């Protein structure tokens, strides 16, 4: 069934009681060409692109919980590509290219809204660093431009640009092409489009082991629902990647941290774009429902608990109120945590592993949502060709031995 004005009208006549299910919940077959571990946006997207672009439709996505219940449903939905290094520009801008038109391609409204991301500069170092980012981005063909304080004020009217504040606004870098999307829709849209192409989505099916043959190559995955044979396995398990990789005898340069976010009560439109401040360390946007969506850095310790400490939330809100005193009386409705897998250089690992037939997409840390379509496409390409695309080739595992790090941690100086 295709979503259209006509199908909407037809279903309205029957009181919206007869919409068909969007994707069937399958039981596993005994064998697949490719098994993807993790049904978040990245994993479901990889299954979709495998079927759509690379002609491999005998694919299963196995998920230990429910579809999109991990970091896909726990992020602050920000999409941008204004990263410093050429490699990052390549992969994040590829993702933004795919975000454009994703709703049409999936016939599912992911509500990608190019409302812009404004990164505020509060000191001379910020100004120099952001202007360097703007120049580097423009050399790579990535949209980003410098705004004076007055231009920032024009873009975000609630911004106080008086220069006698503790953190004065000395300018900002605006990526107009960036924005937000509806995160759950991304998972649901990919799931629906992938299952239409023959992909099986198997929920409540935790992977408990990876079976390998005498030559070391993968044979399949042991799961709660029994053994599932697979010629190739793609792991897209975010915070639990280390756990899955250990099943194949691999140790990874990853640490899993809780990252919290929160939303306020809904209010009339007041925040027109995404506003980030590295120096004060917080970011804010407003959902289409009207809630302020707020986030900042991770908790300090590693954890798999999917929750964090209240003092981190307090600190985040203090930062928001420092930039926007107008929000001091807002009440927060909900907060939650996700487990993010962080690499030493804060850039992802996306490609082959030392185990034949095992591929990985991990290490997106605090910024994986924005990359969803790009990462999914690159994982699918790598699995289909048994070799990385030139966009994801630099994000290999070997860089932690060879030393060719892509040090966005140093470039951004904060969570990104």
């Amino acid at each position, binding site marked *: 069934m295709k979503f259209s004005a006509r199908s909407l009208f037809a279903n309205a006549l029957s009181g919206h009681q007869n919409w068909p299910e969007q994707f069937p919940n399958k039981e596993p077959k005994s064998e697949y060409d490719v098994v993807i571990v993790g049904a978040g946006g990245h994993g479901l997207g990889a299954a979709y692109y495998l079927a759509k672009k690379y002609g491999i439709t005998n694919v299963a996505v196995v998920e230990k919980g429910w579809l999109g219940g991990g970091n896909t449903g726990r992020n602050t939905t920000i999409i941008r590509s204004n990263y410093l290094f050429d490699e990052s520009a390549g992969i994040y801008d590829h993702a933004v290219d795919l975000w454009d038109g994703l709703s049409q391609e999936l016939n599912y409204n992911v509500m990608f809204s190019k409302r812009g991301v404004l990164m505020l500069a509060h000191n001379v170092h910020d100004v120099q660093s952001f202007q360097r980012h703007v120049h580097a981005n423009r050399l790579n063909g990535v949209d980003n431009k410098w705004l004076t304080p007055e231009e920032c004020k024009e873009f975000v009217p609630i911004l106080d640009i008086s220069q006698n504040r503790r953190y004065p606004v000395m300018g900002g870098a605006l990526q107009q092409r960036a924005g937000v999307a509806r995160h759950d829709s991304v998972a649901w849209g990919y799931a629906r489009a992938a299952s239409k192409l023959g992909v099986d989505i198997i929920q409540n099916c935790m992977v408990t082991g990876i079976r390998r043959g005498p030559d070391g190559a993968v044979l399949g995955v042991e799961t709660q629902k029994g053994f599932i044979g697979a010629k190739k396995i793609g792991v897209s398990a975010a915070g639990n990647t*280390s756990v899955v990789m250990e099943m194949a005898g691999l140790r990874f*340069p990853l640490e*899993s941290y809780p990252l919290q976010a929160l939303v306020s009560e809904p209010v009339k439109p007041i925040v027109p774009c995404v506003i980030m401040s590295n120096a004060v360390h917080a970011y804010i946007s407003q959902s289409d429902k009207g809630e302020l969506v707020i986030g900042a850095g991770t908790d*300090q*310790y590693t*954890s798999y608990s999917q*929750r964090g400490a209240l003092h981190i939330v307090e600190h985040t809100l203090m930062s928001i109120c420092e930039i926007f005193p107008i929000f001091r009386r807002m009440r927060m409705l909900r907060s939650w945590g996700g487990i993010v897998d962080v690499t*030493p250089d804060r850039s992802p690992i996306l490609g082959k592993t030392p185990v034949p037939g095992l591929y990985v997409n991990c290490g997106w840390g605090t910024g994986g949502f924005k990359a969803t379509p790009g990462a999914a496409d690159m994982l699918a390409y790598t699995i289909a060709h048994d070799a990385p695309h030139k966009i994801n080739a630099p994000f290999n595992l070997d860089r*932690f031995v060879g030393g060719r790090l892509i040090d966005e941690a140093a470039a951004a100086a904060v969570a990104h």
Partner: protein
Amino acid sequence: MFLIHCPHCQEDRPEIEFAYAGEAHIVRPGPEQQDAMSDAEWSEFMFIRDNVRGEHCERWWHANGCNMFFNAVRNTVSDKFIKTYKIGHKRPSASQIQKWKDAANG
């Protein structure tokens, strides 16, 4: 917020007094070892982490307190501390951790 028992101060203090300092029991190679180490061995020391889902030995720093470092065993799923111990103690064995857990549960 955690309440963390500092083995130097001998009392429970709130987490904001402490800084997390990563996985414990990773020994920096000595000068004579360093010359002989391969890139892969350096990578193992610098970057590769167990990232345990379960009982994790980790280092904490009582930065806004006695300023001392110490180690702890914490369950990374429940976030419960099982025991904190001073640096210099060997990595506790599984049976030692079980004993600590039994003692804590009375």
